[in-house]
């Protein structure tokens, strides 16, 4: 039977609690325990603490497995947002290009070749800049 993420987390905590209790016992009865006994108990404490770390790592693994589907879906939503931003920027470019063309129309109405030339250069520049974006 597969462990749930909550079960793994509870096990991690339980193993740490056992390790803490043994440590409290060892330090609280230091003088009454022989060195061999202290060493044995200490060994058990570290083993239990490492089991706890193992289950903590399993907990994270289970969480990440569960999150995979949502991760892909959020990537799609972010993609939609970026596309909308790109569309708005395209519309913005169209408006900017349109106004530069309008400027050209007005320049032609002035019948001043220098003004017309300047307006043509501006249209070309505007279109090139828009294409870069």
């Amino acid at each position, binding site marked *: 039977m597969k462990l749930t*993420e909550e079960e793994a*987390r509870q096990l*991690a905590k339980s193993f*740490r609690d056992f*390790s*803490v209790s043994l*440590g409290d016992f060892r*330090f609280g009865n*230091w*003088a009454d325990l022989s060195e061999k006994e202290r060493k044995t108990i*200490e*060994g058990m*404490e*570290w083993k239990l*603490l*490492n089991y*706890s*770390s193992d289950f*903590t*790592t399993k*907990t*994270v*693994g289970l*969480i*990440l497995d*569960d*999150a995979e*589907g*949502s*991760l892909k*879906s*959020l*990537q799609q*939503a*972010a993609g*939609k*947002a*970026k596309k*909308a*931003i790109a*569309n*708005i*920027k395209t*519309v*913005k470019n169209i*408006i*900017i290009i349109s*106004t*530069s063309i*309008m*400027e050209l129309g*007005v*320049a032609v*109405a*002035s*019948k*001043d070749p220098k*003004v017309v030339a300047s*307006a043509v250069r*501006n249209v070309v520049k505007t279109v090139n800049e828009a294409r870069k974006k």
Partner: protein
Amino acid sequence: MSLALCGCADLKSIRDFSDISSESAIYTAFAGDYVKSLERQKGYQSCAEEKEKLDKIIERRKAQLSGLLAIHKEVSDYMSALGQLASDEIISYDKSLDEMHKKMEKIKDENGKPIFEKKDMDAFGALSKLLAKAATDAYRQNKLKEIIGLANNDFQELITALKKCVEGGYIESLKNEEEAVKKYYGKILKTAENNPPQDAAIELLRDRFVEKKDAVDAKINAAESYVKILDKIGKGHQLLYDDRNDISSRLLLSNIKGYSKDISNLYKSVKEIRKEDIR
């Protein structure tokens, strides 16, 4: 007045919320330290067999890093994109239209007379800006509503996943590290206390023990604050989702502003705590 006439919305509060959420979501220091915490714990142990077991667990944590970072990045990217969509800069044509209108004002006919009178250009300029903005603002608001509606469930799942990883993964790991510090220094201190005279050495050891323990406690505090940040980000997005049909309402924008302020303050405190880590 002009914003109301064209239906344009001032979504700065949403922009600010998205920006601070994006910035704090990409704070990945905890993910890296989730691995390092176990490496530090290994340093306190002497049994070769147990150290070998820890090495394998450390490798598993390193492999998990890419998954953790991917969630951080995606949440951050998504909020950044929302922020850009909510930004008035994206629908502002003021600079480019102003430049065009100034040029057009200078254009003269063959008699040297301006083709357009200034008052006509001013009116035309103001109207063209409003129309341009209105056209894209309606599109922008609809897109925000659509995307928030689409993303909310998955967004909440990912925020919950990140919270669980910090609480159930990183904080639990730090608590184990704290216990490892206690066992390591506890043994040395007990041994020294039972083999007098070593007062000076004991004093130094005790200071070192307190220093190490305080460093771990500081990290636990920072991580707990980060969980609060994630919680606020999730709640803020939920608020946007619940009121997405009236995304420019004053009440929503005011509430979102509150979340932005909370996140910003919490994030400052997280960065402050982490800066003072004693390593």
